């Protein structure tokens, strides 16, 4: 479910019209296989706060069978309730992840994160040099190497395989850079910034 919710929170691809058309012309809501596709739509593409039944009425005005509509309304209510539970669960996950991240940042890093959406760290590299990195809020492409003046010069992309709150991702990136810079750089895709 976390993966579905993560995907939903990061994507909004398919239009209401095309899905409603599919609902009307297929066996959606009539069998388990189509039901799972319907579920995917609910999780991935349904606009937040929108009454899905209203959407379908607009998109499929000719669908006037009362029993079908009642059945569909029940399914919609069920899935919307599930979506609300998942939203609450995800919020709780974010709070836990944020608490853990805050526990390993110093005061300056916490302030930077609150005001700029990013924090910096210094890493003593194996070659004896000190490198500065910046981690911004996000999951992908959110790690930067800085030059001496603090300008971003390289962008790195590496994140946990599992879908997790951004705060957990940022924590993982910080720990890896500080204690295993070579390992992080070996995994990450690197590109010049700008």
């Amino acid at each position: 479910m976390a993966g579905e919710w993560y995907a939903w929170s990061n994507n909004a691809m398919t239009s209401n019209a095309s899905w409603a058309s599919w609902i009307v012309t297929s066996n959606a809501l009539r069998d388990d296989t189509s039901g799972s596709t319907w579920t995917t739509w609910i999780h991935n593409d349904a606009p937040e706060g929108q009454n899905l039944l209203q959407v379908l009425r607009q998109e499929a005005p000719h669908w006037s069978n009362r029993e079908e509509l009642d059945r569909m309304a029940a399914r919609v209510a069920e899935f919307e309730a599930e979506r609300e539970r998942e939203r609450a669960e995800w919020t709780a996950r974010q709070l836990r992840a944020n608490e853990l991240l805050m526990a390993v940042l110093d005061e300056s890093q916490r302030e930077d994160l609150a005001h700029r959406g990013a924090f910096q760290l210094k890493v003593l590299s194996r070659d004896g040099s000190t490198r500065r990195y910046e981690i911004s809020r996000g999951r992908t492409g959110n790690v930067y190497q800085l030059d001496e003046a603090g300008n971003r010069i390289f962008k790195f992309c590496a994140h946990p395989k599992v879908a997790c709150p951004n705060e957990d991702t940022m924590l993982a990136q910080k720990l890896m850079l500080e204690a295993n810079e070579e390992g992080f750089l070996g995994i990450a895709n690197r590109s010049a910034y700008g």
Partner: protein
Amino acid sequence: MTREMAIIDGSGDTKLIWDSNKSAEVENARQTFINLKAQGYVAFSVTGKEGVKGERMSEFHPDTERMIMVPPMVGG
């Protein structure tokens, strides 16, 4: 003494807490550590003051105040 392992697993961190004076709890934490390492997790000790840099752990130490288990990472 109470010790803590935070496991980043997509749930917003699963916390495992043990008393370093209780052998059964220590053994449970040790086994969890070993299992996670086998799955590719990397262990970090973040004992001490806030803001302290994490240290990579290759072995389980029951007296570590707080450890964080980071799941396998991939390039994006």
